[in-house]
């Protein structure tokens, strides 16, 4: 593989990490008002993502930084081309991040409800818009954008609900399972349409990846039904990873209409030194992020309110 291909794969990997990890953060953010009754449960739900959401978001920053360094013209073309949708993504991420950090520090119920609204909107906007943006890159039609957006929104809901069922105890866990099954009613049909549109005209390999993504999605629903929470989460994560792989497979070798990867790429020297830096640093990042999930692996319970003051 030449360095241009290596970096395209690395960037696809970074976006995959972002969609898998922040996918459930978005889902949890949207489901928090639906699945929790009262303040104690609301805290229980948000604590499942509390220690990790910021680290998850760095996958996006790194993916974007890597695009800037490795494919400047792709980076510049994508974000100036989708100017207003990207602006809305940023506005969403801003209000959501601040609300997640401040929610436990504000004083009144009214202020907390502002934070809840910001977490909801700030999770829904990017969850919809990332799908819409990448669908529009591939198909350049409003219908495709809406379909792509609804798919990633529903998939985030499903992924987040499955994550909550895995990470909580008590009534929230039961409601999360039902929410996952409900979300799959939207995620599966839009997923079938969107995932089969991705490889249209592409190679058999791309078809195989897209079909595998659909299979993972279907098995996630079946596993949720059978209350196999750990495996269901593995399946939704797999569906997102395979779907992202199919997306980037379809973006190769023209990540934007009229710009090829080779034209957009930085020179071999830059790609070479960055490869070494990435190879050295990435195992450490994966190691300590994985350790974080291990530290907070236990199910979150709903603590009595006096204790959560």
């Amino acid at each position, binding site marked *: 593989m030449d360095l241009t291909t290596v970096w395209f794969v690395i960037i696809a990997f970074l976006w995959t990490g972002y969609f898998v990890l922040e996918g459930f953060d978005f889902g949890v953010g949207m489901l928090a008002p639906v699945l929790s009754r009262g303040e104690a449960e609301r805290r229980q739900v948000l604590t499942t993502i509390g220690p990790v959401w910021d680290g998850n978001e760095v996958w996006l920053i790194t993916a974007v930084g890597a695009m800037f360094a490795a494919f400047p013209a792709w980076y*510049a073309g994508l974000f100036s081309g989708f100017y207003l949708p990207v602006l809305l993504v940023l506005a969403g991420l801003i209000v959501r991040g601040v609300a997640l950090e401040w929610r436990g520090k504000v004083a009144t119920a009214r202020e907390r409800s502002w934070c809840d609204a910001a977490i909801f909107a700030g999770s829904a906007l990017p969850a919809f818009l990332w799908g819409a943006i990448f669908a529009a890159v591939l198909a350049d039609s409003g219908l495709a954008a809406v379909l792509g957006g609804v798919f990633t929104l529903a998939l985030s809901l499903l992924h987040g609900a499955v994550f909550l069922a895995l990470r909580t105890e008590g009534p929230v866990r039961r409601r999360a399972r039902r929410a996952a099954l409900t979300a799959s009613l939207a995620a599966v049909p839009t997923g079938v349409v969107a995932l089969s549109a991705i490889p249209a005209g592409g190679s058999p390999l791309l078809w195989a990846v897209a079909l595998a993504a659909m299979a993972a999605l279907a098995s996630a629903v079946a596993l949720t039904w059978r209350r196999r929470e750990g495996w269901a989460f593995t399946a939704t994560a797999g569906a997102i990873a395979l779907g992202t792989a199919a997306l980037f497979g379809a973006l190769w070798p023209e990540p934007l209409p009229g710009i090829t990867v080779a034209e957009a790429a930085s020179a071999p020297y830059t790609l070479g030194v960055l490869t070494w830096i990435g190879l050295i640093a990435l195992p450490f990042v994966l190691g300590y992020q994985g350790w974080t999930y291990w530290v907070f692996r236990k199910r979150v319970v709903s603590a009595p309110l006096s204790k959560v003051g």
Partner: protein
Amino acid sequence: MEALDLARWQFGITTVYHFLFVPLTIGLGVFVAGLQTAWHRTGKAHYLTLTKFFGKLFLINFAMGVVTGIVQEFQFGMNWSEYSTFVGDVFGAPLAMEALLAFFLESTFLGLWIFGWDRLPKRVHLATIWAAAIGSNLSAYFILAANAWMKHPVGYTVVDGKARMTDLWAVLTNSTAIAQVPHVVGAAFVVAGGFVIAVSGYRILRERRAGGGADARTWRSGLRAALVMTAVAGAVVAGTGDMSAKLLHEQQPMKLAAAEGLRHDESGAPFSVVPGVEIPGLLSILAANDPGAVIQGADDIQRRFAAEFGPGDYQPNIPAVFWSFRVMIVFGMATVGLSLLGLWLTRRRRRGGERPLPAWFARVCLLALPLPTLAVIAGWLLSEIGRQPWTVAGELLTAASVSPGVSLTEVAISLAVFTALYGVLAVAEFALLTRYVKAGPQEEPALRPGQGDGDDSPALQPTLMY
């Protein structure tokens, strides 16, 4: 009005706003880590009180630094696509390294610190705040290396109208970056020190008025630590500021001329304190260590640039640069002077015992918040307005950097959205910080048995810090 003008306003507003929170993140992170280390070493309860109190203020501020930082990563591509395409090969590398090496460290370990108080062994928990603080400081290095390259590009060639990196090491050890990193990071510690000084002064005044004084020792030890930090960091800022002035003389003569309002090349150039008040020869000494050295003047540089790069206006907004420079120096020095005065007033008596802090000085401490904040903002205005009309000195003009496909309306919308959003958030952040400072340290509930052993508690509970 063109898209270019609005894009410049947007960059200025979002970046200056981002930098309101960044220095506190950089400096206060280390300060809180130091407090927790002191608690760990000595076991004294007031260090834990201070760790949790300033830790909470740190987190309120940290959130703002993070979310406003996301915008930075995107807006080069959104508003400055020509710039991004031209520089990405070189400029993108430190940005990617910043995300990979610094941001992951910072955010992952901060999450562990916030939620790990009763999940991690004490020693490991202490290590997490240090890892986060190191991440913040490392990110400052990478972004400042990228920024220094815009003003003094090194380690590259231009091929087919694009900059191509030839030497990453040269980019990372750019002399401009080597001078700029300790200057800006030092200034961040001055801002953070000033913040702690102001908060401590306020708490001391408030508790005296309330007739208490039980916590006098707590606030005094926090104040002393912050005074030391501010004074030491202030010395670093002054020393590296001198280095930067000498580099400006060699690398960015136009910025130096603008900062001094010097119109024509002059040997033995005077330092202009304010317009009309000049100290003969001082500028030549500061810039070149030689009272007779020739310093280039703005009008003469303009002529030389026009001859080299073709007709055009190569001067920045000279009054803006001139006055930013003065605000930076005066407000910065005032902060350091305040910290030295505080150290003198709180010195130990020869025979034991502590002097009570004079009430007038506790009031003066409140100035330690706005003074260094205005100084660092002025420093950035000096540095970045003074770089104009270039985005990459000698290579790319700002006017040629903007996204050609983005309309005036689009930029206007995003400028409006960011300004409105940032305005609301600034009010909320200020209210939240004020509320916590007024409330003072919260009673920490008794620690649960088994705390710090990590695995004993049956299930994860929502944490108290969150």
